[in-house]
């Protein structure tokens, strides 16, 4: 099975070379074909499991606390100015 990658690739924001696309399409098609196995099961009335702990809605008081300094938070960024991340121009 060939998978139509184009929409997922666009949504995932990953640029593929034509060679990569040629390799990935049949490989992912094969995986998708394999996971269709789940269609053999009747899952009506079964609740989905998002995670396996008994916890839900873990919250804490919304109070200021110590965090990374602005300098530390920015120090790994490829481009910064005036304490901000810099990105290519968005609006004309």
């Amino acid at each position: 099975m060939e998978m139509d990658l184009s929409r997922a690739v666009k949504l995932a924001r990953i640029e593929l070379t034509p060679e990569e696309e040629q390799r990935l399409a049949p490989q992912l098609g094969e995986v998708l074909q394999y996971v269709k196995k789940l269609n053999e099961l009747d899952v009506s009335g079964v609740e989905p499991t998002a995670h396996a702990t008994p916890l839900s809605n873990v919250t804490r008081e919304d109070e200021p606390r110590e965090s990374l300094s602005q300098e530390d938070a920015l120090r790994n960024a490829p481009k910064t100015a005036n304490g901000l991340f810099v990105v290519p121009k968005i609006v004309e």
Partner: protein
Amino acid sequence: MVHFLTIHQLLEQLRTGELSSREATQACLDRVEKVDGRLNAFISVDASDALAQADAADQSRAAGEDLPMLGVPVAIKDVLAVKDQPLNCASKILGEFNSPYDATVIQKLRAAGAVVFGRLNMDEFAMGSSNENSAFGSARNPWNTDCIPGGSSGGSAVAVAADECIASLGSDTGGSIRQPAALCGCVGLKPTYGRVSRYGLVAFASSLDQVGPFTKDVRDAATLLQVIAGADEQDSTNVPEPVPDYSAALSGDVKGLRIGLPREYQVKGLDPEVKAATDAAVKQLEALGAEVKEITLPHTEYAIATYYIIATAEASANLARFEGVRYGARLDGADPEEMNRKTRGAGFGEEVKRRIILGTYVLSSGYYDAYYLRAQKVRTLIRQDFLKAFEEVDLIASPTTPTPAFKIGEKTGDPLQMYLSDIYTISCNLAGLCGISVPCGFSKAGLPIGLQLLGKPFGEPDLLRAAHAYEQATDWHTHRPNLD
């Protein structure tokens, strides 16, 4: 021969003053120097930082301090943040990233006095079963360097099995601790989901990831788990369950412990040597007084499909943060979207791209219900299988992997075949259980074989008790690869 020591052996010698932490740390660094050119377990090592920590540990001890791991060198998978050290997840996309803080498990190791060193090789972003998906080259199996060490925490397993450190940390999302431990011949423990904090662990699949220890024996696994386990308000998935005394579980007594053998685990691809070794291990546990019975896990054949939908979906969301803005390398583009596309296209390796695209696909509108939601429902069925089985037994035994380590390059062109080799390890993460792999023999070709034990959620004491009793009765864990 200091590098050959276990945590408890080293601590004994540190306490009597026979050895210093500097000597132990230097011995590990020398061992890395000697063998790692062949094994590639370490991406980098900051020797002067390690020795400075060792000296500080020696000074503390001289001042009368004693801590659970004071002066013990522990190496770290390249997926955990260690302050002021590089963090790459064995990927190109993080560029020159340098961690601004310590992960909670690292803080806990430091508080216990450990010497934290090295960045251990892995499959990129923990995605893989062979360590071949590393941007820094594959780590190699110390028993045969033509073979894979397993993955994703391949470097963590190699470093322990080759005595380049005393113990190490890795992470396990679908078997990434237990599988390489089995293939390299050391002990690997995946704690229950929620047992160990993930703050400072780079997320792959958030409902499955867990940090855990690699050690040379089961006693050490108990010691290291004791140090890293426990609640952390920085990780909302951490369960505030009290942490028991794990060493107290090492009684050597398994009388009456009920061990289940899943009928569905007799799969076609199970290697006869692996089957023979794990059958013998179960017999050994039975001879020690455990009760062995057959159980059923009817949804076993759906586990891999369920896993590769859920894990890739979560990965596609988690890895969205690598977009060339906040950290890592960037390739320029005319607008932000083009910059994102180019940065991610150049920065991610092929397996990571495959999984992000698959995960994006199964979450995209029109496919969400058919793939993702359905997989979450099957996950419920898989979990119920285990909870039902655990009404009848205390532990479940199986091989950790269907075969011993395969050759480097053997499965790289066929991702689906690679995924299918995770059959015994994957369900544990889906169901939120704990699991351990211990050495239980060798193939005729001289490659290690691992026995996997699975326990109930927060059933680590039973897991450690059985694994320890087995280890006491056998000597597989004392075998070492010849690297001279």
